[in-house]
């Protein structure tokens, strides 16, 4: 099928099925372990490398001008662990007792190099070796090899959230239909799963989820104070994805006690029990990144993938009479229908002049809302 993505006023995507393209690459040169056309799983390593980390310099010079250089127990390039003896000799201590004069590594790493130029300097430098890997994240096919990585594509239901924390993870979707996701909704069966709640999630539920080993939580909203409690610090800018929480949290609507949009919940309910890949990475400024929920199709071939058009046809909906919209600002965070689009500016309660529209809410009330404060469904 063609990729028809319905773009709402803010560009958040909800797509029943589209071709999802992910670039998976290392930050530095490395070994690419996959080939073009290869089928991959989320855990497939696309590329890997070893990079240098911290270094430790160990002084071999002693106060008497001698050096432990001749007593090195390791060679250049040899691996060492924290606590390993790098150099050692027996010396006479107080009262003629034999003691051990030694140098010990405080990090895991490799003997990087040795400098010996007595009496000025004599030292060993140990450098950490860190393994970097990038995984596929979604099941699919490698469609292209790129510098330091590859492009992985899949056919999937694709939903964007408004905000998230935590990195990439995957698991079985488990839709819990309660308004508030509490700790009582979470039990041992939730371990390894991605839970979906219709409304908000409590901090107790989040803590229990982390303890039990839930992989992800997708809800309509969360209180900002609870998010900060979960993170352990106060978030200042919406640039996330690197948090080490133990799971990923995605909110689809906003902060506060907000219900998930019905259309989003329906898509997720339809996918209940299916495997999903989610990412909480968010960047709300230039180069906008929103959290993602990718629910891959179970079976498809590379040919089917290739036949699916990459060009996304956006249906940009414009405001007109009868359009269903959602107001996205307190105190009216709800659905309504456009009944009038006045051209002239209107004076709000704030005394600001703004372009507005008249919205009929579900309870029959008609209110005036600034045009910037709605999103089109």
């Amino acid at each position, binding site marked *: 099928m063609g990729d028809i993505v319905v773009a709402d006023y803010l*560009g958040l995507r909800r797509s029943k099925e589209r071709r999802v393209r992910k670039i998976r690459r290392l930050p530095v040169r490395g070994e690419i372990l996959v080939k073009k056309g290869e089928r991959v799983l989320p855990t497939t390593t696309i590329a890997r490398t070893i990079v240098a980390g911290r270094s430790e310099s160990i002084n071999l010079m002693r106060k008497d001008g001698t050096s432990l250089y001749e007593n090195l127990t390791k060679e250049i390039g040899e691996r060492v662990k924290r606590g390993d003896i790098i150099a050692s000799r027996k010396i006479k201590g107080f009262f003629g007792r034999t003691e051990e004069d030694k140098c010990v590594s405080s990090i895991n790493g490799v003997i990087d190099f040795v400098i010996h130029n007595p009496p000025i300097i004599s030292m060993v430098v140990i450098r950490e070796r860190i393994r970097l890997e990038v995984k596929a994240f979604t099941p699919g096919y490698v469609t292209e090899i790129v510098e330091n990585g590859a492009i992985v594509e899949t056919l999937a239901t694709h939903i964007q959230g408004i905000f998230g924390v935590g990195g990439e993870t995957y698991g079985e979707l488990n839709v819990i239909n309660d308004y508030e996701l509490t700790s009582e909704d979470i039990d041992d069966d939730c371990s390894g799963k991605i839970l979906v709640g219709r409304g908000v999630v409590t901090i107790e539920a989040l803590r229990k989820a982390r303890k039990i080993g839930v992989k992800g939580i997708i809800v309509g909203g969360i209180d900002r104070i609870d998010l900060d409690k979960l993170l352990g610090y106060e978030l*200042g*800018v919406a640039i996330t994805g690197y948090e080490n929480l133990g799971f990923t949290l995605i909110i689809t609507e906003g902060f506060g006690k907000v219900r998930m949009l019905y259309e989003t919940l329906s898509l997720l309910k339809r996918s209940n029990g299916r495997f999903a890949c989610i990412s909480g990475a968010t960047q709300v400024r*230039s180069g906008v990144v929103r959290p993602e929920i990718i629910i891959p199709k179970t079976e498809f071939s590379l040919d089917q993938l290739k036949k699916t058009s990459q060009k996304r046809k956006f249906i940009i909906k414009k405001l007109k009479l009868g359009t269903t919209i959602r107001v996205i600002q*307190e*105190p009216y965070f709800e659905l309504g229908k456009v009944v009038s689009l006045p051209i002239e500016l209107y004076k709000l309660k704030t005394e600001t002049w703004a372009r507005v529209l008249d919205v009929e809410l579900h309870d029959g009330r008609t209110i005036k809302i*600034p045009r910037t*404060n709605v999103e089109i469904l």
Partner: protein
Amino acid sequence: MTIESNVDLDNIRVILALDCGSTTSKARLFKKIAGEYRFLAKGEAPTTVEEPHNDVMVGVRNSISELEELSGYKILSRGELITPNLEEVGVDLLVTTSSAGGGLIMLVVGLMRFLTAESAERTALGAGAIVMDVMAKDDGRPFYEKIDVIRRLKPDMILLVGGFDDGNIDDVLTNAEIIASASPKPRLGSNFKLPIIYAGNVRLRGHIKKILEPNFVLKMTENVRTNYEEENPWPARKMIEEVFVKHVMAHAPGYDKLMKWTSAIIPTPEGEGRIFRAIAAEYEANLIGVGLGGATINVYSVYNGRYVRTVNANLGMSYSICNILRMSGYEKINRWLPFDIKEFELRNRISNKMIRPTILPQTLRDLMIEHAIAREAIRLAIHSHRSLPPGKPLTRPLPVQSKPGEEKGRKRISNTIVDISKIGWLIGTGGLLSHAPRRIQSALILIDGIEPQSETNLAQDNIFMMPHLGVLSKIYPKAAMEILKKDCLIRLGTSISLAGQLRQRDKGRIKAAEIHITYSNDEVKETLWYGSIKRFRLDDGETASVWIKPHWKLNPGAGTGRTFKTNVEGGAVGLIIDCRGRPVQFHKDRQNQKRELVDWFKALDVYPKKVLEKWEI
């Protein structure tokens, strides 16, 4: 920047100026009426440089369409610009500023953090860039982390500096190698090479070329820091501006079309900076300007002739609004609110603004929350501006800046410490200030945020057009200054703030000052109590002489306890005399805090009285 060679400046009748902001594209129309240029109409629409549109022209056309709709003036025909102006249709000149997609995003790479890297940062800021990261040899990060950061940031341009001209070699080349290894891709437009400007040790140009030229657009210019004492930002700044237009804007989505329409395009902060410098020159005064934007807060100072701009890229009224909350704290925001709001509710509201930056406040409470945040944001930005390097008190003077074309090495005294009591003008720009429903709201936000002392003129950008006039001044300075004086710069009035503090319990009980104001045909004599702030009528164009005899511990401008006499000019809000102390003292008790705020707001007529009376205690 290109200039239409066939445009006769004297025959320009209609000018269209655009600002493609990070959230909103703003169109402003100016016309020559009775021999002088005046503002005619405006139009605004969301900026569309990012998905799903990926074309800045959609937002540009929408903003022009709104302008057409509201003014009845035709500018587009089937989506194309009508130029030149004929029979009241079309425009003669189009100029543009841009901070779309977050503006000009730069990465600066130097050697030492508080030497070459810092000079490079100032250079980039002065060119209107947002500096997302400053890398230096001594910043403590391992090379692979730097590579990861370079990749993730996706800057529009990199400024590489380091080494005096006869100085460091190895470390500068190492930095070049790190950039080459990162192989960063440009943010906007994936099919072109990222520009890098090298402004370091000139002896290394050949080596730098070998490392970077194969994969980047490499430009070389004079070293920004040739010795410890002096920095030379102008050649690099000029190059940043040129590269911005030719290489960055030219490849941003839709900008190739915009470049065909416009005669000049510069970063928005560069536009603002030009106008602030023009105002300082025109009035021969020290000034502080604040650009309160959605993504950033820019502070501009022209002090003793020296222009400094600081950008707080993580303080803004939408994208980074939560940073303001984080850095100030709930208590500091709450102290500006005369009503109770629970902390969790305040945090939710502010966080929702962060993730949905385009929403407008619908209730007065929402507006007051935004104003409270604006006050704290300005306080943070001013503190940062006055204490370079960021976060630390200024313990050393900045290096002397050579002027363009000046022979380098001349010794000049550079007084870099901004004395707030010697600031003659405070000027605000940016959506929140320009669109404040009442002028007194923006005046008080500036006063509360900056806490001026003594006599200070207050002004604001009428409807947000300073960047527009800034870019216009590059091509047609006469027109820009005419519009600035007639339609852009709204004189708010004068504030006289008494420096010094008394005790908390002296509020309302001890006289702060005896005031005598003499108008042309009237006079006012009044006693002001400590802790109060008062507004006196003084219309635009009107002057009055003011005589203030202060409490012996307070200083209105002539010295502590000394009588102060001055002639002041009026404006939209008149004359404000602030006896709340410097720094402003707040009641520790929340009930008294709220009561005091209501008193201040009522005394100055900041918000509707009916609403304030509901919160009166």
